[in-house]
């Protein structure tokens, strides 16, 4: 029979097992009927004939078995029987099965979730690019101007395949509807050609279009934008779009996989460098100006192993030789460096990458605990069932069959645990999204790809085989008779030390996790108690980013005045104000201050310059300590010299002296501007709850005031209502103006400690799980040994040992593992203390009281876990224990 048809038969037998069976049944029935007929014809009565026919035929079931053997379906039948038996036996002990499945699900789920992340963030190349391994990214702190880029590119053959680009937030839209904020990328050089990306529609930039001195208003859009914004229209090429209030022509659509070279920030629109002046609404500015160092990152396609080093050397040589513009800095002091691996977040995301690694370590611990635990549970169970297996061996089951039964159970458990684990990993993925990548919207779109599924499947099968083989092989080690004789007594002395060590390690790993969780929880508690200097409750904020729409300061200010004036009169709104920077916001401008008349280069105070409307302090709940805040007239007067200082700024500048009415000056580019202090307000936390408060100077007018504005609304309304009010009002002012989604100030503050909060929560959950798992592990080991020693305990009780002695004996055994585990855990936590130190606040990573608390809790849980088998030991009836031999 060919392999194909055999497989087909197997398959048929598997999906429709009744088919071959039915034919066999029918054939047997025909046979019996014919034999009966023959006997009846010979004069036998019908009943007797039927009986004799059956006797002549022999055992119907036995023959069926033989036929199945011949048909080669034995294995399948056995397996499906094993599966049925396994399901029955798993259902008979729901606590055990549930425990193992949950344990595996947690281990596999956590590992899969973290693997998906790490895979996406650290391992997978940026999609849509040809041979990404040959692309080397470089950055310099200065950035690179387009003319310098061209000079460097031509300086060496190895730099010929050099491109550069810069992130550029843009707004795309029509004149009559709010624009959409998108992520743009300004590109230089043969960008798409070097990356090896092809257009699915239209074309990419021609060499003439990527010069700085042309006015090529052409863009290439991503496939995603083509679908979401343009409805995947076929005539997209040649379509005109409004970007930053200027009109561009779409010339091509990139392949669907390609979203730029930075995986954290997928690009929607690519623009040539020549678009720079248009995007900035500044005809005076040009990418042709060597002072405009607009390009952030250089990417070179190199060949060979040492290509990256050779390119770096060539790049440093060429950039070091560039002329330094007047008043600027050179590349000798700010040399370009290799910017990690292309697409791997390095700049500014180090912390998040670190967190992914940290989570890898944590889930690794959990997985270890889960594995050890499952092994212990299955071992305990196989010991409980050794009588059953002995009977099966004695009744003639082959060793292979007994082992197969073990395997099937193990794999079934692992499969159930694996399925539950994959489900769990989706949930955990959302949790991890919050931990590692808040503010990175793509992170919750990370797909569970086939590699991750494969990873989970491998993990599941391996654990299943591992767990079921070890106890299965032990069950095989003795022949059936010895089994029957020794059932109930010792015999499984296999590696008790290994098991104890495993349990101690489990306890240790959970103690480490508990210590980490407690440290983080205490840090978060302390962070929440840090005084903010403002009252966040009830405050909602919105960003209106008017710069891309080409708003001049003269045009933005009336909008600001009108919006806050209108809002202040709405029912439910207590106060409304505008600001150029808010605490825990995204950006701020720093300025240097000193008392007027100081000389030299000494600027004692660097403050956040915040251009605010008069009601800002009321809206934010910032206490006015001395003097006054701004008057409405000052807000409308861009030449006003009034300034309100935060308390520590005033103290640094004036010490104990009264600062009201004092004159100070702020540094601007090649000059100073005089200011008059009119008030002092309390310090506020600006960006972080950690470290010192950033000092602030409030002015009616600052440089950053002209890019956009943040509206601050204190109200008793629900945030969604405030959002609707603001959107409607601003829509009347300028329908094309996009308004950011509102955020409550409490959210902004919490977001700044989101990693700590979520990590703390995750560690807490994992620590509890790990603790429970270890408790179950300890329980199973001690319970196992109690069963092993049933006879011994029976003898002791018979000889008059008291209950307390028995309990103490059992507890002592558990205590060894528990104490060893706690010591390992404390040592582990101490050794790993530096890992968490970056996240802790107000509590030392080696805080003794935390360590002691965790150790006491762990010992108490361990005592509880041992108490159950210890109690069981006291219940042993000596008569039964001795008779059971």
């Amino acid at each position, binding site marked *: *029979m060919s392999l194909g048809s055999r497989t087909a038969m197997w398959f048929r037998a598997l999906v429709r097992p009744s088919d071959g069976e039915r*034919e*066999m049944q*029918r*054939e*047997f029935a*025909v*046979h019996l*009927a*014919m*034999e009966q*007929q*023959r006997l009846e014809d010979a004069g036998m009565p019908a009943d007797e004939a039927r009986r004799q026919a059956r006797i*002549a*035929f*022999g*055992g*119907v079931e*036995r*023959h069926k078995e*033989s*036929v199945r*053997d*011949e*048909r*080669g379906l034995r294995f399948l039948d056995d397996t499906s029987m094993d599966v049925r038996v396994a399901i029955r036996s798993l259902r008979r002990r729901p606590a055990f099965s549930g425990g193992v499945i949950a344990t595996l699900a947690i281990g596999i789920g956590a590992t899969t979730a973290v693997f998906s992340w790490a895979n996406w963030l650290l391992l997978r190349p940026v999609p849509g690019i040809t041979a990404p391994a040959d692309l080397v990214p470089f950055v310099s702190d200065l950035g690179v101007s387009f003319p310098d880029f061209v000079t460097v590119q031509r300086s060496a053959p190895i730099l010929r395949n050099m491109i550069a680009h810069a992130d550029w937030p843009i707004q795309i839209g029509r004149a009559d509807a709010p624009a959409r904020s998108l992520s743009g990328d300004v590109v230089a050089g043969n960008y798409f050609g070097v990356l090896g990306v092809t257009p699915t529609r239209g074309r990419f930039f021609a060499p003439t279009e990527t010069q700085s001195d042309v006015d090529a208003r052409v863009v290439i859009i991503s496939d995603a934008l083509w679908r979401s914004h343009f409805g995947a229209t076929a005539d997209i090429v040649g379509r005109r779009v409004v970007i930053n209030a200027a009109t561009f022509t779409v010339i091509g659509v990139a392949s669907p996989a390609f979203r730029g070279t930075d995986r954290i920030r997928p690009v929607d629109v690519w623009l040539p460098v020549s678009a720079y002046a248009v995007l900035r609404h500044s005809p005076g500015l040009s990418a042709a100006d060597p002072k405009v160092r607009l390009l952030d990152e250089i990417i070179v396609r190199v060949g060979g192993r040492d290509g990256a080093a050779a390119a770096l050397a060539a790049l440093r040589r060429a950039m070091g030789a560039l002329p330094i513009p007047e008043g600027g800095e050179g590349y000798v002091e700010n040399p370009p460096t290799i910017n990690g691996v292309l697409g791997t977040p390095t700049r500014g995301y180090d912390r998040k990458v670190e967190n992914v690694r940290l989570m890898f370590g944590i889930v690794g611990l959990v997985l270890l605990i889960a594995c050890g635990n499952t092994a212990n549970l299955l071992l305990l169970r196989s010991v409980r069932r050794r009588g059953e297996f002995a009977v099966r061996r004695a009744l003639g089951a082959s060793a292979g069959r007994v082992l197969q039964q073990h395997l099937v159970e193990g794999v079934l458990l692992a499969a159930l645990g694996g399925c539950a684990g994959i489900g769990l990993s989706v949930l955990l993925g959302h949790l991890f999204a919050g931990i590692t990548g808040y503010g990175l919207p793509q992170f919750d779109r990370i797909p569970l790809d086939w590699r991750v599924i494969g990873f989970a499947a491998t993990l599941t099968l391996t654990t299943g085989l591992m767990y079921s083989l070890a106890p299965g092989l032990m069950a095989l080690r003795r022949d059936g008779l010895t089994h029957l004789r020794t059932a109930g007594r010792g015999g499984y002395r296999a590696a008790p030390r290994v098991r104890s060590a495993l349990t101690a390690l489990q306890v240790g790993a959970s103690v480490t996790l508990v210590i980490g969780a407690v440290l983080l929880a205490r840090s978060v508690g302390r962070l929440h108690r840090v005084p903010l200097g403002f009252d966040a409750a009830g405050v909602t904020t919105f960003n209106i980013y008017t710069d891309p729409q080409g708003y001049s300061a003269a045009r933005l200010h009336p909008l600001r005045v009108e919006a806050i004036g209108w809002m202040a009169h709405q029912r439910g709104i207590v106060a409304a104000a505008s600001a150029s920077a808010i605490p825990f916001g995204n950006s701020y401008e720093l300025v240097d201050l000193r008392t007027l008349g100081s000389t030299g280069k000494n600027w004692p105070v660097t403050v956040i310059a915040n251009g605010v409307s008069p009601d800002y302090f009321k809206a934010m709940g910032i206490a006015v300590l001395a003097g006054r805040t701004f008057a409405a007239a000052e807000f409308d007067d861009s030449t006003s010299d009034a300034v309100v200082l935060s308390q520590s700024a005033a103290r640094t500048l004036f010490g104990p002296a009264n600062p009201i009415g004092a004159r100070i000056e702020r540094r601007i580019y090649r000059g100073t501007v005089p200011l008059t202090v009119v008030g002092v307000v309390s310090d506020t936390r600006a960006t972080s709850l950690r470290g010192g408060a950033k000092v602030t100077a409030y002015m009616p007018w600052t440089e950053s005031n002209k890019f956009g504005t943040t509206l601050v609304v204190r109200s008793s309304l629900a945030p969604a209502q405030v959002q609707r009010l603001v959107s409607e009002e601003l829509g009347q002012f300028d329908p094309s103006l996009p308004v950011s989604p509102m955020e409550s100030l409490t959210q902004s503050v919490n977001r700044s400690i989101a990693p700590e909060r979520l990590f703390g929560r995750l560690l807490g959950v994992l620590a509890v799980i790990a603790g429970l798992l270890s408790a179950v592990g300890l329980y199973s080991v001690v319970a196992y040994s109690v069963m092993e020693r049933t006879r011994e305990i029976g003898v002791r009780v018979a000889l008059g040992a008291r209950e307390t002695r028995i309990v103490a004996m059992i507890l002592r055994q558990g205590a060894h593992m528990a104490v060893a585990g706690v010591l390992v855990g404390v040592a582990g936590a101490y050794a790993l203390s530096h890992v968490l130190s970056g996240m802790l606040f107000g509590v030392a990573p080696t805080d003794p009281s935390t360590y002691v608390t965790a150790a006491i809790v762990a010992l108490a849980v361990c005592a509880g876990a041992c108490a159950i088998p210890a109690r069981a030991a006291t219940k042993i009836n000596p008569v039964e224990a001795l008779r059971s031999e």
Partner: protein
Amino acid sequence: MAGSDVLQGTLDLLVLKSLSLEPMHGWGISQRIRQLSADALQIGQGSLYPALYRLEKKGLIKGGWRTTEHNREAKYYALTAAGTRALGAEVDDWRRFATAVELIINAYG
């Protein structure tokens, strides 16, 4: 089981031989073996079937449902070409084996 036990392996030969005359169903084969051996060989009727499935799997015989002369549906087995060849080889083997046994039995008179 009455009569002498059929040697393992010879059952295949007997089945093939009884099918060499004409296609037959399971019960018919058991009857034919009994008749041809003058009741000396009586096969445990059920144990015939594993042999039939084994031979069918090897491709030596081929089964199909047909109506008997008594108007009953029964599964008939027929020799295939490979089965005919196998029968020849099995018969030769058996003869050699039987001769060898005969020689040994006769050796000491």
